[in-house]
């Protein structure tokens, strides 16, 4: 064996454990799930090939379409809610526009350190029909039958959950942005200030271009996280009532584990993967354009 062959061999040897692990826990399940998605596998017996029938049924299913709509709303609140708000908070802290910055930083970041199940229980204690807010309203209004009707409305039931998601995840983005803002060279902003640049000019021409890459990365996290949203929603509502707050991950879970439709559930999971890849590709395209503009 020549030296270069030995060198190449050693690369492969060092790569092998990681690659094997990656293949066994990521690549194999994805391809296995893909192959199952073309079958009517029910958990036992031989999987029967049925082509694209699972996908056709999913696309025609109004429960899936409503779940997709809910997922897209979560993507929207993440990308256009959590990220701008996180950026704004990080900017306020970085520019020292508020006193006791570290206290606010801790307060805003705190929700993300709490388990989603605990968060769900907490919010349920507040807003459910047996919760504290409803009890107070019943007492004050003298209406013992009062309930918060928003949770029983097909179109609006997801909105309280969106608020919880906004409250819960904004802190993560704030910390990411704050850390990246601190990497900026302070003299750059000082020079701009001496040259008479306003706060908005500094934000638009110096800080924002510097942060485009970070914002894009945050948006990728937000999109992928939003499409696989499960724990908080399942703990809060279980997707109910009547599928009103269901998202695709819960739709997949119910079909797979409650109805024993492994093939069908695999097709739903493939749709999540495709949606995530599609949205991230669009985002990368937009980011590329923005980076070109600011170069």
């Amino acid at each position, binding site marked *: 064996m020549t030296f270069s062959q030995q060198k190449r061999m050693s690369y492969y040897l060092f790569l092998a454990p990681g690659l094997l692990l990656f293949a066994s826990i990521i690549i194999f399940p994805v391809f296995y799930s893909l192959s199952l998605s073309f079958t009517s596998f029910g958990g036992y017996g031989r999987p029967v090939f049925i082509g694209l029938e699972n996908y056709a049924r999913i696309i025609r299913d109004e429960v899936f379409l409503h779940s997709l709509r809910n997922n897209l709303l979560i993507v929207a609140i993440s990308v256009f809610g959590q990220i701008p708000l996180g950026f704004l908070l990080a900017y306020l802290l970085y520019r020292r526009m508020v006193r006791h910055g570290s206290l606010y930083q801790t307060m805003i970041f705190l929700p993300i350190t709490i388990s989603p199940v605990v968060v769900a229980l907490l919010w349920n204690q507040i807003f459910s029909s047996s919760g504290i807010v409803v009890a107070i309203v019943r007492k004050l209004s003298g209406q013992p039958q009062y309930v918060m009707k928003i949770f029983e409305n097909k179109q609006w039931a997801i909105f309280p959950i969106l608020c919880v998601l906004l409250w819960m995840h904004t802190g993560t983005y704030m910390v990411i942005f704050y850390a990246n803002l601190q990497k900026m060279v302070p003299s750059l902003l000082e020079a701009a200030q001496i040259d008479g640049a306003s706060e908005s000019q500094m934000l638009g021409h110096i800080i924002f271009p510097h942060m485009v890459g970070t914002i894009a990365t945050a948006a990728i996290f937000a999109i992928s996280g939003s499409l696989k949203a499960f724990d908080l929603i399942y703990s809060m509502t279980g997707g109910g009532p*009547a599928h009103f707050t269901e998202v695709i991950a819960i739709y997949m879970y119910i079909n797979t584990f409650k109805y024993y439709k492994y093939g069908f559930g695999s097709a739903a999971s493939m749709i999540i993967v495709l949606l995530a890849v599609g949205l991230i590709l669009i985002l990368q395209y937009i980011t590329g354009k923005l980076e070109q503009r600011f170069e």
Partner: protein
Amino acid sequence: MNTKWLRGTILISLLLVPALLCAAGTKEHAEDATGDDVITLSVYHFLDQTDKTTAPNFQYLVDVFEKANPDIKLTFEYGYGEAFHDKLQTLAMSGQLPDIILLYPGERTSQVTNAGLVQDLRPYLAGHEDEFADMAMQGQGQNGEIWELPEDISITSIMFTNNRLLKELGLTLPKTYEELLAQGPTIRAAGLIPISIANKDAWPMQSCVAGMLVERACGVPWFDKALAGEARFDDPEFIYAMEIIKELSDKQMFSPGTNQLSYGQGLDDFVQEKAVYFIDGSWTVNNMVGELTAEQKTYMSLESFPDIPRQIGNSLSTSATAGQGFGMNAKLTDRESQAAWKWIWFYSGPEGSAIRQRFGRLPAYNLDEPKDADPMIKKLIAYAAKVPMGYVMDSVLAAEPIGTFNINLQNMMFGTKTPKQVGQELEAMVTAIGR
């Protein structure tokens, strides 16, 4: 030299792998203090370990069994709610099913029973069949197999009644559905809930109300026909049962925001005397024994939902099914199977049933009424003896149609589906999947 050493090490490691794997998969056999061979069996059970009533009660049964059988060691793993079923499926699919498993008689654990992963208990049970309620001895498999030995008879629809509140409001137990509806405004005006029921999980309305109303509106012979494909779930009599649920909801007879209330809230409201009636299953008596005060137990009674107009089924009937019970892994050896059967027979047979009866359950094993039983248990036994029983829908229909039906009942209460659509969609699903 180094290369040789490396090759040797790799070779030995490869040879050791199967031995290690084999050792990891070998069943545990130990010896007890007396030197006898102790057999260890894994058990997967449905239990909420935080439940202050059922968890200690179950542990008491285990302690009694292990004391009487020092040669058998049971190692328990618990699951609760959907997590129990998720894990059971994973265990079944990965070929790691425990030795003893809690199973259901209907479709709920069919991925285990239909796949032939558990033993038919009939050979072990031979000669004891008459000692159980008829309902518990109905075949669970396609060829009449008994996959699990039912521990209890589950009456899924009992109208628990607070007679003290009724008296205070100047009302009496309603004999007809119209009388019940007429009581609604009086009860609500007093700031109380007419019928406490928590339906966030969607199954209570089906299991505790719909099944009973279908029996009343359609009768058992109709349901037999529907299961055989000779009657349809969009027949007018079935739709009529759905219309009654819709009317009860529209006239605010159920707990406010019932579809937002977690299961358990219904019982809480009843125990705290915020509700005059409470509809739930016989299993709730188990909790009532501990949660109701001695005084409360004197004026709480177990009743049937009143008769409905144009009733075809039996007067004051309810819905019931044989409950869950333990089954055993098909891969067990003869010796392990005998040990597993000892536990199953202890739990669902005379000894365990007598203990569970004292805890407030309604065992499938025929027992005399205990003289020292809690008043609520005596009331349950008396109630079970007098009421006619129809089908529980989720014990006879497949998981997906029932799951969809449960959700559609919620839709119907919100007005997003009509009673007719609920019936039509159930019929369509049952037809598509097979009856």
